[in-house]
């Protein structure tokens, strides 16, 4: 056995075909919405993209170039695209719609079961701060997933702005907010409740903090949330969610697939507004995620609102659960004297869209194995005129 580095995987033909088909379905949908695909390099400077990315430092693959600069294998696509958009594409005051399908790299320390290199397909809409842009992203994501044939999935929407306002409103200082929201980020609700109990706050405020954890469900959540938080910035966030809900209804997508979950916070620290994750049956991790990141472009010297999403292709395939069986391929076995005849036959068949392997019979040791492998085998052996098919 020749070992691979931890988390690195091969893609063999059947899986490759499946990936290719799913990627094409999603890509076609994304193109139909006018997004343009781009590519960026796999290696970026640590100082810029590495730092701007929200992926933990210990998950970055780092290396040195010949001058001793630290490079990273891109851990996500949002930061590189922000770099390109800020430095090249975003010239006029017009929103741009970009898309990508690319491998990203995150080293895994703990154990197997998680790839360190995986493909993300996603879009970024840069320079548009309207809720319409958020809705478009979510609607496109749902449409793309539909195209792949995925049936059972759910999208949860939260709002980082609301979370920030809610906690600062009750707790007052950044320090106290961080102490409590750490539990939220760690998903440790037991610790969260215990921490709330120990705070010096009125019992009403304590109850507000506890009630926050149940802000999950349909449209009614906005109502419940507005009872918990009445300051203006918080209201603005809720108004955005309400508008999102209405816009998605226009797309015909609210309710069925979309739920609110205001407890949703992301480890991707660059998010500033609406955030979302997609879950599917039989996959223990989100298959897609995204959100608004209005401050990321600043790190590359431009002021621009932006939103986007990324689909984890490997997890989506796990949710789809089917590996495409190989498409039928025919085989023409020939001997030297009939090579030309075989070649012409192959050209004919390929024109019709049939996949044909042209194989010199002298290269085959086991004819039975050969006929097992292909849909049909045409033998063009010996003197001309004798064609036999199996």
């Amino acid at each position, binding site marked *: 056995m020749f070992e691979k580095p931890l988390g690195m995987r091969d893609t063999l033909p059947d899986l490759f075909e499946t990936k290719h088909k799913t990627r094409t379905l999603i890509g076609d949908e994304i193109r139909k919405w006018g997004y343009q695909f781009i590519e960026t390099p796999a290696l970026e400077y640590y100082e810029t993209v590495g730092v701007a990315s929200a992926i933990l430092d210990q998950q970055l693959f780092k290396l040195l170039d010949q001058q001793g600069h630290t490079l990273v294998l891109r851990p996500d696509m949002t930061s590189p695209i922000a770099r390109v958009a800020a430095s090249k594409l975003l010239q006029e005051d017009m929103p741009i719609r970009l898309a990508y399908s690319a491998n990203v790299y995150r080293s895994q320390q703990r154990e197997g079961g998680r790839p360190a290199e995986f493909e993300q397909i996603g879009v970024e809409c840069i320079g548009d701060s309207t809720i319409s842009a958020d809705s478009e992203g979510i609607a496109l994501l749902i449409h793309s997933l539909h195209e792949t044939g995925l049936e059972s999935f759910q999208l949860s929407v939260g709002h980082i702005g609301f979370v920030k306002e809610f906690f600062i409103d009750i707790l007052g200082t950044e320090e106290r907010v961080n102490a409590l929201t750490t539990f939220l980020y*760690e998903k440790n609700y037991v610790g969260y409740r215990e921490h709330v109990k120990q705070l010096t706050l009125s019992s009403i405020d304590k109850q507000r903090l506890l009630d926050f954890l149940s802000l999950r469900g349909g449209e009614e959540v906005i109502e419940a949330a507005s009872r918990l938080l009445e300051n203006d910035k918080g209201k603005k966030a809720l108004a955005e969610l309400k508008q999102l809900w209405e816009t998605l209804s226009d797309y015909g997508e609210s309710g069925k697939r979309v739920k609110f979950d205001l407890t949703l916070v992301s480890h991707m620290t660059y998010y500033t507004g609406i955030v979302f994750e997609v*879950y599917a049956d039989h996959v223990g*991790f989100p298959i897609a995620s995204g959100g608004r990141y209005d401050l990321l472009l600043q790190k590359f010297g431009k002021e621009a609102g932006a939103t986007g999403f990324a689909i984890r292709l490997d997890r989506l395939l796990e949710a789809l659960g089917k590996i495409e069986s190989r498409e039928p391929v025919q085989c023409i076995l020939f001997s030297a004297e009939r090579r030309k005849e075989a070649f012409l036959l192959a050209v004919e068949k390929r024109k019709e869209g049939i996949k044909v392997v042209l194989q010199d019979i002298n290269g085959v040791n086991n004819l039975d194995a050969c006929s097992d492998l292909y849909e049909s085998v045409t033998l063009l052996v010996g003197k001309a005129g004798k064609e036999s098919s199996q």
Partner: protein
Amino acid sequence: MKEPLTIAMPKGRIFEEAASLLREAGFKLPPEFDDSRKLIIDVEEENFRFILAKPMDVPTYVEHGVADLGIAGKDVMLEEDRDVYELLDLHISKCHLAVAGLPNTKMNDVAPKIATKYPHVAAAYFRKQGEQVEIIKLNGSIELAPMIGLADRIVDIVSTGRTLVENGLVEYEHIVDITSRLIVNPVSYRMKDERISELVDRIADVLKKETIV
């Protein structure tokens, strides 16, 4: 019929208490549940599937989503640091993590050695104390380590303290209190939220009653 809710249960110490808590919450669990050697037990009436795992592995099953829920000790949660929701403190299997060693001994100045089943917890604890220690990972009978000179101290679970006493060890420091927790996979928490909420509410009701009494 909808697909069952899969619950990872820890074998051993915590199992009985966890099972009786579920029964108190009104879930019908079959009598063979307690002394079965099976690793997967389906309870069709409740549409539950229980998997019986090593306590240390419960958060792993839940994080990977092959179990929707699990019952795990806080000690395991601290050690494993998995991306799962910790929804309820079940207040069962109370104990604490402690530093223990032979009486009247000091830690080696140059390279104090700590034997433990919880290398991450132990390392984090001593780092916080500003002490640089060397961790030796053991899988059980940790008390042996100081007795035969493998380590200066151990970090381990203490419930009654009897094991320490019987082996001539004393507790030096109390690290953190431990109880069992109900944990949930983040995807299940959303995809199966109604069933999970119902289960959580029923258990929470039992816990509330007990604290009132």
